[in-house]
């Protein structure tokens, strides 16, 4: 009871400043729009955005489902492929030396523009190009990190295993894979938000106008700024959902290691 009260207290202590800051910020925003009589196309008041959000909620939810599904499918596919490939890389040193620098470099460039090329390969209403794009972004993040976890093992550990006459398979199972698990969680923590962002952005390169990203641009283009902002709010919430997924992942990792 006491312990629970204590942790609730520290939780409040962490969350309260953020909530107060958020409320003040929104209050100031609302006040600034009214006081300076800002035109809606310049800046929309939070109250107007909220109104639109409530009014259009079913539509926003539908669009969020489309973008969210793309992000999720891509995240899962990219993770599976990335983990599989990292095993291949860790097995063949020369491949690792060629592909890892390339993958690291690719993580630093906006490869989601490739979705424009992918769009040409599929029908105009297909979600596949966007999912491939998300998977590709996730793939490289997971690949680089997990391959690192599989190869960067302590030399003392490897020497110990060799002194036990352990086979390569035994070293993989008992040293390399356990060593790579935290790297996998780290990569998911990076990849989950990247997946949502890629899913949104890839909607700007054509295809059906059904996701959050395309709705934001079409509403703004039609001067429906408040509605556009309402979709932005939806995008923020979806992003938060994926972010909390990675936070949970991190927590599981810590708990698994009892740290």
């Amino acid at each position: 009871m006491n312990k629970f009260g204590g942790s609730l207290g520290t939780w409040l202590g962490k969350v309260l400043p953020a909530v107060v800051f958020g409320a003040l910020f929104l209050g100031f925003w609302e006040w600034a729009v009214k006081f300076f009589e800002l035109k809606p196309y310049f800046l929309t008041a939070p109250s107007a955005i909220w109104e639109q959000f409530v009014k259009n909620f079913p539509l926003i939810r539908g669009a969020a489902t489309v973008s969210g599904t793309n992000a999720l499918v891509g995240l899962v596919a990219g993770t599976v492929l990335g983990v599989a490939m990292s095993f291949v890389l860790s097995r063949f040193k020369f491949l690792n030396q060629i592909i890892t620098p390339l993958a690291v470099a690719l993580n630093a460039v906006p490869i989601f523009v490739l979705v424009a090329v992918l769009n040409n390969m599929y029908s105009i209403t297909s979600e596949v190009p966007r999912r491939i794009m998300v998977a590709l972004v996730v793939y490289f993040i997971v690949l680089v990190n997990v391959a690192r976890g599989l190869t960067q093992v302590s030399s003392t550990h490897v020497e110990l295993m060799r002194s036990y006459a352990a086979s390569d398979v035994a070293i993989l199972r008992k040293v390399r894979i356990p060593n790579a698990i935290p790297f996998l969680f780290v990569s998911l923590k990076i990849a989950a938000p990247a997946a949502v962002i890629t899913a949104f952005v890839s909607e700007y390169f054509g295809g059906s106008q059904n996701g959050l990203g395309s709705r934001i641009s079409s509403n703004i283009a039609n001067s429906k700024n408040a509605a556009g902002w309402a979709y932005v709010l939806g995008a923020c919430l979806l992003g938060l959902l994926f972010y909390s997924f990675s936070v949970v992942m991190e927590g599981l990792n810590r708990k698994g290691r009892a740290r």
Partner: protein
Amino acid sequence: MSAVNIRNVSKAFNEGKPNQVDALRDVNLEVQQGEFVSLIGPSGCGKSTLLRLIANLLEPSSGEVSVNGKSAVQARLDQDYGMAFQQAGLFDWRTVRKNIELPLELKGWEKPDRRARADEMLQLVQLPEFGDHYPWQLSGGMQQRIAIARALAAHPPLLLMDEPFGALDEMTREYMQGELLRICAATGTTVVFVTHSIPEAVYLSNRVVVMSPRPGRITKVVDVALGADRTEDTRNRTPFFEAITAVREGLRGMHAAHVGMGNDDR
């Protein structure tokens, strides 16, 4: 049958390349069953290389290494030795007990047998209540004791140690030396021990092997006449100081020769 027999062993890294290093040249050393032998010498004189040759983690460039009358390869495959390093090298994701069980797992032991042996080893290193802890919950000295327990879990006749107490503070270090002697006396294990502390080498060993660098070779072997029963009091006895002086002279003679200072006795 000697525990370790090293005959005319040389080891060069990057052989035939411009960056060739002659880590060891013409080394001969025989270690008897139950003996405690220390290798001492300045950094880079090939102590770790020699230990890794015995462990068959490296192959000699020339010469022969045999362990328990077998080739070094066969001895490794038979897990005839246990090994401990400066880093305890425990696996963070395994409990202390699971760490000790690892060599037994790889030997294919059944779970109840492994567990019984791990508990026996925890008793031996006097940490019976820490089986379910994780390594990072233990102090450096405790981790090193677990590493020793793991190295001895399969009851190997030979223990190879590379500066195992190098990262510990002086107090813990002396305590661990006493513990190691107690454990070796209880198990009858032969030990080859690398250190660069002269008192440590003398306190622990029946023989101290002094090595010198470039190329790595054995320059002197000091017999330590301290008998089997060593206590804290041993550190205050004359034979202890005599052996320390002998080892120091071995190291210094080589240093003087190396920098060309003749017999200068500073």
